[in-house]
């Protein structure tokens, strides 16, 4: 009788033990957004289960050779007047992360940008006088056409900028898998129509065809934030 009682107790306690362990084992995980601000050699890391990092790159200096007209599909010197900034982003965590760029506190009229997340951003040669459209402008036009097929030769300036802004806000991001790196290239330029009143000694590069000195009398600064979010949170959707 005693042995039977003992056996019964063992079964009961073993069952209770298994149920308790199962309860804690089957708890749903709760991750969290984690914010960290740092700017270390422009290398951004985001860690285990840290799903969002906002990195501020402050007080970037821009060196524009001239202004340009983005909507002009026949402009040949666009590539020579842009200013490129690159940021290396590294996912050292265990979940895919969606990475995108945002600008804020921009000072200076007419500053525009587009972001690329691959290694294939063409490198313009400022010394070369080109007789055809540069590879970078080609790439930008192709990218925006794929985003919105209204972006074609003949588009008016206002619509071109609207499509560009829409692309930057809703479609320009990369998903970086755990253990992977990505180099983000941000291409900046200045729209001539927005600064023509401020320009005194410079010439409109697109029409004159020859790079001139820096865009005078207009200072530019901006804060560039590289934001990484957990991909399944559908940021930018």
């Amino acid at each position, binding site marked *: 009788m005693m042995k039977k009682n003992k056996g019964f107790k063992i079964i009961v306690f073993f069952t209770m033990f298994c149920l308790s*362990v199962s*309860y804690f084992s089957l708890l749903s995980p709760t991750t969290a957004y984690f914010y960290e601000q740092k700017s270390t050699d422009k290398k951004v890391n985001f860690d285990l289960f840290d799903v969002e990092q906002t990195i501020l790159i402050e007080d970037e200096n821009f060196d524009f050779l001239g202004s340009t007209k983005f909507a002009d599909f026949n402009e040949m010197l666009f590539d020579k007047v842009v200013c490129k900034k690159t940021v290396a982003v590294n996912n050292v965590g265990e979940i895919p992360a969606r990475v995108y760029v945002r600008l804020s506190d921009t000072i200076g009229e007419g500053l525009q940008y587009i972001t690329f997340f691959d290694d294939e951003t063409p490198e313009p040669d400022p010394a070369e006088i080109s007789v055809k459209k540069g590879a970078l402008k080609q790439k930008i036009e192709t990218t925006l056409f794929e985003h919105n097929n209204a972006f074609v030769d003949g588009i008016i300036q206002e619509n071109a900028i609207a499509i560009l802004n829409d692309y930057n806000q809703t479609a320009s991001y990369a998903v970086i898998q755990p253990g992977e790196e990505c180099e983000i290239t941000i291409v900046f330029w200045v729209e001539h129509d927005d600064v023509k009143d401020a320009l005194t000694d410079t010439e409109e590069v697109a029409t004159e065809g020859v790079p001139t000195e820096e865009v005078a009398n207009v200072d530019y600064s901006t804060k560039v934030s590289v934001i990484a979010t957990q991909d399944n949170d559908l940021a930018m959707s």
Partner: protein
Amino acid sequence: MKFKNVFFRAVSILITLIFVFVVAMFLSGAKGFAVLSNSMSPTFNRGDVVFVKKIIFSELQTNDIVTVAFKNNEGTFTHRVVEIDNDKKLVYTKGDNSSVVDSAPSEAERIVGKLWFSLPLLGYLSIVLANRYALISLVGIVILLIITSKIILSIKQKKG
């Protein structure tokens, strides 16, 4: 022999207490979550378990800690409320270990519950066993222990 009895008695009491706790959580309607990241450190850390209870939006207050479902319902995050927009029914949250507020506010319907209490370290069970190899290893060890004890018992009986 005395030590063995005392040991088994202590284990039995512990198991009973844990089981009663689990039943109490079920009956209370609280939901438990295993914390995976340190964004709320030092309030709670990776490996802790947080228990939350449903709350009406109007009862939420600043500084409450809430668990919120992601937009596509694939997971949750747990952060502190820093601002409540009663007109739009939104809450702005921030991790205690973060220097900035979370970039997007959360809608009322995504709030799973408000923090009731947290327990340290118990979440590691879920974190470790989420790895299927760890789970298979654990099941294997349990089976091995059962078989071993049966063999030892059988040998003892034969000798006796």
